[in-house]
């Protein structure tokens, strides 16, 4: 009898624990849309919309929830703790691949201008000509940024063939630079902005580079974040979409001030960079993403 009591108690405790772990609160039930984000300066439209009351103007009440990483925000979305989350494309694809039955959909994108940028480590005081013999991280051997850089370097009399290029994903470049594993990184402007905030120096920048190559198609190249939604009523998704598009139309200075307020990212470091903007998913991207795109049904 005693053992049976213990067994029942254990079963009840396990049920409570499992239910607690998987407890899914009704999303948007209280009329408040919970938005998961990581406080990155690349989410300017979100911060502008909050600061300037654009969400309220569109009939939405929102609550921002900041996470330490986008994967944490992804888990919160899966568990129904937030209704909307902003995740990088690579992480979004992982989430959608692993949890395609969870009802998570891509409802929009936050884009940032491409811009080929060479960032050198903070302890190096060098010029473009001094790069010969140094180790520079680039996206891939055939990356459009690398082609553009090599072309521009040649114009400045630098032999790019003497630079030791190593190839790695954009998101791992900054940690490699921080750890001193490479002397410089050839990256997209969005990552250069973050690198500059860590004290590294921009040595070269070309905004004329046209995004898109074999490994990173044009329709995806400028996407910094996907806006993912789960079990959110269509009127709320449409409201979010309208509010973020409206926020993207506001002057860049508004965005920079909103970024500074929400992320403490200094205004000075933002100058010289464009600001991110929210876009609806284009036809090409929609075709590529297929069922993962939110359709309102």
């Amino acid at each position: 009898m005693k053992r049976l009591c213990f067994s029942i108690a254990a079963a009840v405790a396990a049920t409570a624990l499992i239910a607690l772990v998987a407890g899914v609160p009704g999303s948007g039930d209280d009329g408040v849309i919970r938005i998961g984000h990581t406080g990155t300066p690349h989410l300017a439209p979100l911060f502008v919309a909050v600061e300037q009351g654009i969400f309220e103007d569109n009939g939405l009440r929102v609550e921002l929830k900041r996470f330490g990483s986008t994967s944490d925000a992804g888990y919160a979305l899966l568990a129904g703790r937030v209704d909307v989350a902003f995740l990088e494309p690579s992480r979004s694809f992982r989430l959608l691949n692993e949890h395609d039955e969870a009802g998570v959909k891509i409802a929009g994108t936050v884009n940032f201008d491409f811009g080929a940028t060479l960032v050198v480590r903070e302890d190096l005081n060098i010029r473009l000509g001094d790069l010969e013999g140094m180790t520079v991280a680039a996206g891939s051997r055939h990356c459009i940024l690398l082609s553009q850089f090599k072309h521009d370097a040649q114009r400045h009399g630098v032999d790019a063939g003497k630079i030791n290029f190593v190839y790695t994903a954009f998101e791992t470049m900054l940690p490699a630079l921080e750890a001193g594993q490479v002397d410089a990184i050839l990256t997209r402007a969005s990552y250069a902005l973050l690198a500059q905030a860590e004290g590294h120096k921009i040595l070269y920048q070309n905004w004329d580079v046209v995004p898109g190559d074999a490994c990173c198609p044009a329709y995806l190249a400028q996407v910094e974040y996907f806006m993912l939604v789960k079990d959110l009523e269509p009127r709320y998704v449409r409201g979010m979409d309208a509010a973020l598009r409206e926020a993207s139309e506001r002057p860049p200075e508004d965005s920079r001030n909103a970024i500074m307020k929400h992320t403490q990212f200094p205004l000075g470091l933002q100058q010289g960079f464009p600001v991110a903007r929210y876009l609806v998913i284009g036809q090409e991207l929609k075709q590529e993403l297929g069922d993962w795109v939110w359709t309102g049904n």
Partner: protein
Amino acid sequence: MDRKLTYETKGLNLVLKELSAFFTGIAKNNFTVEFFTVFVPIIILWEALPRLGVVPPTLVPPPSVVAETFWDLLVNHDLIGHVGISLLRFFLGLAVAIVTAIPIGILMGWNMFLRRHALPLFQILAPIPSPAWVPITIILLGIGLPMQVFLVFLGVFYPVLFDTYQGVKDTDPRYIASARVFGASELTLIKRVYLPNALSFIVMGVKIGIALGLVMLIVSEMVGAHSGIGWLLVESKDFFRIDRMVACMLTLGFIGWFLIEVMKYIEIKLALWKVGR
């Protein structure tokens, strides 16, 4: 030749006997009817609730899925290799901590002069949560094995140090007085009185240290490592593989539990008279 063979056979027999005693002890002490009374319903519910759709199976993977994933990790993702490299980092940190903490603890417990000089410093440093050391450790030691070993060391060092110190300090004065009456030197006192008296405290400190060291191992592997069970855990998290995360967590739990069992066995062997007191 015959004698050598006899010694080898005896040695092998002894090892087998000890191993048999160790595993029998584990089975007898842990896998009891009382344990299964609690364990079995939990496992059944854990399996049933996701399967019945009460909770989403992707968020709460049932044990059968976790078992499959564990097998997949073992066969296709070099789980053994990851566990091996993690254990290497862990045992290096553990060894450095034990080798330094026990002598310092003994000296602090034995000598008032040393105690007054060293104890306040350790008492100030010890409450700093070990993960708070991560950024400074990266600055000082970079990212790699030294940093990982140092972080494990930090987790293990203080429990072993303070338990050793306490064990030596709490030695019954009658034992010390008796030994002195028989002309024991200070070194003999340490070897024959203080250390045996502190043994169960030291083992307890190592047990706590193992638990904290494992925490620090995972923390250290989450920062800049490309191998190890902690890295595998973070990688699984980044890929939204909850089943893999659970498999890694259970592996870690098993390692911690097994090491604690080893320490219990060592305690029985070294300080039998203290066990169960």
